[in-house]
């Protein structure tokens, strides 16, 4: 595992040389290889899930190229600059969110898009990064573990975008943003007493939350609890996706041979439910392989965050690493029927543009943090 944990400071001459090239370009080689591997697998699944629709593949490939480019650009921005931008990005994102609430385009019954004339933009994507940046920026200035007062204020920063996005309504993204902010708080070291207390309070408040949910959100939860109740409506997704995964077995039916996706039983097979297509065609072995790549990306990222030198970088990097895995967990959890359907794509694999760009920009930030470190004179 040494190659995996190698850092650019390692002393072997080989690593020194190679490390220097990538380090000068602010690229983390290991992470880059893992991300390229994952998106290549994504293209291969999409080929099957999209029924060899070349238009679909071209668009996805273009988006990936753009997203990787954005990642490399962001990696050039030093962490102290990111820290400086953090509150402004957060403010901008929040204002845009408010803008969406008032003038946003109604897309699919949900108000998420802001039409800027030349392109449509989802402010919630900006907040996926701006929220953990904001909380990290705020807490990095204080003595850690944070005092109760700072915890409360940080919670407010998390709550603002979460509530606004949940109102859109986009429950999936709201969950991801809340967890990215809470991850920062956790890494900053809030006491277990508070964590346990919040969990207990949350359980007690669940009925209140229920009353605030939109009908379709309630429907999703109810469907999740008993999908067989509504086989024609929203339960259909879960039933069909479980059939796809289960029928895949240990080895799978082989690439492009999954009958569920091919015969169109599986809805949204190239977007949110693409994991089911993969599981049907590549079986349990393929799934373990795919999940392991995600795990490796997470471990590499969290390792990079441990190596980070200042509090802001450390908190932000740790949060981004965790959010990436939560992303995966929520998607696979929903497709396999252990979580309700909340509309979160499979990171870097699902067809669709905006979330991919955001994710890779997140990795760009990680790379920047890792490659801008100064050598400490011990």
């Amino acid at each position, binding site marked *: 595992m040494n190659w995996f944990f190698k850092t650019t400071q390692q002393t072997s001459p080989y690593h020194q040389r190679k490390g220097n090239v990538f380090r000068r370009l602010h690229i983390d080689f290991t992470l880059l290889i893992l991300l390229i591997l994952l998106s290549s697998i994504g293209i291969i699944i999409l080929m099957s899930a999209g*029924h*060899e*629709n*070349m*238009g679909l593949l071209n668009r996805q490939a273009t988006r990936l190229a753009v997203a990787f480019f954005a990642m490399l650009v962001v990696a050039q921005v030093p962490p102290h600059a990111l820290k400086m931008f953090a509150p402004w990005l957060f403010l901008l994102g929040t204002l845009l969110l408010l803008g969406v609430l008032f003038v946003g385009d*109604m897309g699919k*019954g949900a108000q998420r898009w802001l039409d800027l004339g030349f392109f449509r933009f989802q402010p919630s994507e900006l907040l996926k990064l701006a929220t953990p940046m904001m909380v990290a920026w705020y807490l990095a*200035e204080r*003595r*850690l*573990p944070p005092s109760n007062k700072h915890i409360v204020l940080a919670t407010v920063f998390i709550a603002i975008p979460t509530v606004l996005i949940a109102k859109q309504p986009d429950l999936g993204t709201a969950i991801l943003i809340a967890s990215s902010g809470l*991850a920062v708080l*956790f*890494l*900053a*070291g809030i006491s277990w007493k508070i964590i346990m207390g919040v969990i207990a309070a949350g359980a007690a408040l669940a009925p209140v939350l229920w009353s605030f949910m939109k009908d379709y959100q309630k429907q999703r939860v109810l469907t999740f609890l008993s999908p067989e109740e509504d086989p*024609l*409506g929203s339960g259909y997704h879960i039933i*069909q996706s*479980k*059939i*796809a*995964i*289960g*029928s*895949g*077995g*240990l080895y799978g039916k082989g690439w492009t041979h999954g*009958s*569920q996706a091919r*015969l*169109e*039983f599986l809805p949204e097979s190239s977007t949110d439910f693409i994991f089911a297509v993969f*599981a*049907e065609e590549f*079986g*349990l072995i393929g*799934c*373990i392989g795919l*999940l392991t790549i995600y*795990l490796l990306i*997470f*471990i590499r990222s*969290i390792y990079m*965050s*441990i190596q980070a030198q200042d*509090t802001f970088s*450390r*908190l932000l990097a*740790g949060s981004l*690493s*965790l959010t990436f*895995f939560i992303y995966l*967990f929520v998607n*696979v*959890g929903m497709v*396999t*029927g*252990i979580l309700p359907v909340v509309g979160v794509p499979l990171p870097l694999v699902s067809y669709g543009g905006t979330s991919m760009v955001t994710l890779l920009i997140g990795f760009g930030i990680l790379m920047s943090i890792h490659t801008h470190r100064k050598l400490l004179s011990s």
Partner: protein
Amino acid sequence: MKTRFDLKSSLQENRLFLLRATTLIVFVLILFFALIARLTYLQIETHEKYADLAQNNRVKLSVINPVRGLIFDTQGRVLAENNPSYSLELVPEQVQDMPETLKQLSALLPISDDEIKLFEKRRQQQKRFASVPLRNRLNDTEVAVFSANRHLFPGVDIQARPIRHYTFPELTSHVVGYVGAINEKELKTIDPVNYRGSRFIGKTGIERTYETELHGHVGYQQTENTAQGRSLKTLSYTPPLSGKDLTLHLDIDLQKVAHDALGDYTGSVVAIDTRTGAVRALVSKPGFDANLFAKGIDQTSYSQLQNSSKRPLFNRSLRGQYPPGSTLKPFLGLAGLDYKTIHPHQKIYCPGFYQLPKQSHKYRDWKKTGHGMTTLHDSIVQSCDVYYYVLAHELKIDRMHHFLHKFGFGQKTGIDILGEKSGLLPSREWKKRTRNQVWYPGETLIAGIGQGFNLTTPLQLAHATAILANKGSAFTPSLVANIDNKNQLPATTLPIKLNNPQHWDLIIDAMYDVVNGARGTARKISIGANYKIAGKTGTAQVFTIKQDEEYEEENVVEHLKDHALFIAFAPARNPQLAIAVIVENGGHGGSVAAPIARAIFDKYIQVTP
């Protein structure tokens, strides 16, 4: 930026972070193994069950569209029906040599390059085993030609899809309306389950108002399919619930008479059966070919319709707002009687103009020489303006408003199609509220001859005429007579009680003489009728003549000519039908609008003597 160089606390923070990061790794590992465990359960433990289900998942659920309800006229003639429309469709996966197939098909059928281009575009967007249309609306010959050669084209087939067809596309374009492709806005308001397979939705008229009834409810069927997705047999079937059939009060014969009588004029005719409120004719001219919309209208035709100066898409009978002109006089005369501001036999001298006390402005009568000594009866028969200047001046605007309001002016009639306008019945309060201006006495005079702020729709005018014909008690105008053989009951309007009910007869007598009297403004239409009509002519100014100018008919450009109006009911003593006619830029009500009403009465009164 303050940075604390507190080595001890910095070290503590490092250790704390390391601890927390490790906790996160453990947490993530737990999640990771939870997913693996779940996948193992699905793919190993219950694999057989799901493999079976996937096998049997050759069973496919598909939507069956309900058949849209038909629309009939009062005598059971079909106005809107569903015709099969045949389209030539290809399943790309089953076509071996696409370019060759397209070439051969083009040789066989008149397929244009545009159709092929559109087909290629659609093919890119769809699944390889989905059916993609190449040519829509095949005619019978094309269907026959292809059917004979079908064996040569594997993967090519003819699909039948019902398409709405209007039997009288132009006659009923405004009243029945039309269906069109569901747009994005409508998509948000409709029930997604019920409309899962629907492509069309009612856009205007009856089609829109009764969309829920006409659409019906979607059905489902489960079919067993081959591995290629072709269906083998039907396993279960939940039938769709067809849309309900509607029978209208509308009489297509009467509609046609009204339509033809209007000739090349733009305008509107509304005819209401006074005994039930049944709308027998509702014409707005020009109309348009409603079938264009049902088939899916192309951009050129649509913009042509939309940009036409005659505005064929505009439903004048419901949404056209016109000054009622002199047709308002019978109602105002009744108001004068009821408020006792005039006496039936009282005479007013008409010198051809009227002046408010202490004002120099002359309010002119249409007859320059004046009508001389005029009674209420004469004022209606000859349509004397000065009489109504005097009457209005004494009545004042608020009492006029109050009385006319009872006849439905300035408010929607409540007819059962959407989109009706409410017209405008001015009052002091209205002017204050909307324009923040005080009311001037001169405006009352202008309102007294149905000009100025007054606006009515043809439907309102017909409805008010029906109320007058029935001496105060009438019915809300309605178009739908029965839904799926269930009769819709007529709804009565609030009856109008006069202080002296004999006043009704005074007004009706005067309207009788408008048509049947020797000096009536519509006396020409009484010739040869074996029943009696009571009516009132009207002329509505399109533009204002300046104080010293003359309105000279020959010199006025067509679109600024006066509108011709006529309201009437017949038989005068035992009313059956009330009519309002508005002919845009038609000139005189008596010569242009009245004969149109006569033609309709001739048809209707003779049909049901």
